[in-house]
């Protein structure tokens, strides 16, 4: 086998291991879904009435793509926790003492995360349909939106891996993850139209990768997507979200690999 084929084979074994665990720790998936549903209820039924959309449209249809992207972003905290847990339990040491490909522990983890989050996404979209979210775009656009979201998950998983390798404990992984991901998702157009934000936050929210992803998927699903009229990031959301996803991956994946190679305890 070539080195690349070996790396792929090892990565598949690690991915298998990460997927095998999921039904055995059902609370992870259940909490991820419940948390998202809680946000749906909170925004669709509690705050939603007080958030008028410029140009009209259904707030629930506006909200759901935001919920999807937020959930996928938050999933990177779960990745970070899993990584920190593997380090603390000595499993990473075991892997490092085996003659396996060095990349496999990380590529296996991140690709398993894509599969896992695709499952979560299905459940969330079904809940979206229940509260009144609809898709108005073409099938092609729908597929593109899903593809974009899965790419985003992959990127976020690599960021999670890096966070998990940087901290010492599972608790720290959770805290650090929250610290990074929470502002990222809330200073964005995920829940409120950017025009309603104070002028200091507006440019941050406009250029935020989460806003780009949310805007792009709203457009592809044919959901209402109001943005400031002269906004370049608003008008080029799809392009921007590809640039962000690939750019962040290009930065964070090598950083995570470098960090993994230099682990010494």
């Amino acid at each position, binding site marked *: 086998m070539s080195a690349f084929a070996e790396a792929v084979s090892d990565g598949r*074994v690690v991915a298998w291991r990460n997927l095998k*665990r999921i039904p055995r720790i059902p609370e992870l998936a259940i909490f991820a879904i419940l948390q998202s549903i809680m946000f749906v209820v909170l925004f669709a039924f509690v705050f939603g009435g007080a958030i008028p959309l410029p140009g009209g449209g259904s707030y629930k249809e506006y909200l759901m793509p935001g919920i999807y992207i937020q959930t996928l972003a938050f999933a990177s905290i779960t990745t970070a926790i899993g990584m920190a847990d593997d380090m603390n339990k000595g*499993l990473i*040491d*075991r892997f490092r003492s*085996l003659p396996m490909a060095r990349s496999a522990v990380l590529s296996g983890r991140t690709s398993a995360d894509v599969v896992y989050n695709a499952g979560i996404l299905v459940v969330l979209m079904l809940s979206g349909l229940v509260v009144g979210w609809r898709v108005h775009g073409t099938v092609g656009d729908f597929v593109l939106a899903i593809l974009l979201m899965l790419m985003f998950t992959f990127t976020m998983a690599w960021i999670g891996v890096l966070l998990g390798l940087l901290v010492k404990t599972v608790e720290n992984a959770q805290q650090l993850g929250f610290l990074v991901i929470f502002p990222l998702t809330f200073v964005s157009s995920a829940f409120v139209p950017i025009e309603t934000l104070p002028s200091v936050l507006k440019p941050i929210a406009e250029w935020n990768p989460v806003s780009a992803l949310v805007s792009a998927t709203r457009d592809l699903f044919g959901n209402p997507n109001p943005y400031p009229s002269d906004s370049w990031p608003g008008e080029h959301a799809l392009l921007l979200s590809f640039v962000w996803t690939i750019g962040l991956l290009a930065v964070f994946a090598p950083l995570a690999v470098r960090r993994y190679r230099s682990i010494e*305890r």
Partner: protein
Amino acid sequence: MAAIETEGLVKVYRSGGSEVRALDGVDLEVQEGTVLGLLGPNGAGKTTTVRILATLLRADAGRATVAGLDVARDAQAVRKVIGLSGQYAAVDENLTGRENLWMFGRLYRLSSGDARRRADELLEQFGLEDAADRVAKTYSGGMRRRLDLAGALVGRPQLLFLDEPTTGLDPRGRLGMWDVIRGQVREGTTLLLTTQYLEEADALADEIAVVDHGRIIARGTSDQLKAQVGGERIEVVVRHPDDLRRAVATLAPDGGSTCDRHTRRVTVAALGGAQELVDVVRRLDEARIEVDDVGLRRPTLDDVFLTLTGHAAEEAEGEEDDDAVEELAA
């Protein structure tokens, strides 16, 4: 050929302004098919040595070869011939025993079928068949350690590193683990084992190296070390503190005893074994010294350290070292 050879291994952990010299020039040689016991308290440098040999850690200075391969330059080749089982059972607790072993087999590049057969073999060998399809989370401490050791053996390693394989196990678990390790050694595997227990090194190792503050301070067979330490001890606890002086004079008229005023305890080497204990009891009785406890006990790690270094095995300092190591890991 030596299966393991190290020369002047040095490892320094730096954190902030302070430095911990975890290894301060470790020279080791382990012949093929033999068992070396690395004996020392927490923080002495045992784990650091194993981690360097298992390619998990790079030494700051010195050289180490495993099966003739340089651990720094040929790390990936080294990994193919070693098995490592650590202090903390490194198995996935959400996988079953069988799944864990299958996964390790696949990562040793066995085919799926071979990995399955190897897992079955090991499960049987380690008495884990009944628990094979339960997740490792539900295993007892001893079962987990056995599974961990089985994991280290999946690739049929020429060399096995066991870092404190019985720490934290109950006596029964410890004996079970010893049996399994002995079986492995009989099959010809070279073993490097670290332990805090003289008794364990005695039971398993052909040769023992005593480690303290990152240095090997003594090495030899268990008998040689014990002869150096002076064999068994007689311990007497007197009832009245006022009798301590007379007890010392009675037990060791020529000196050579230790005496602890707090616990009213006098300890003296018992070269004559049980017969000497009988004599001691008679002499104490003749001197009309009342005692709370008299007994014969085997030398411990503490006795070894007391004899070799003049200080007791420093548990607390060792733990500090461990913390420093952990801090640097972040």
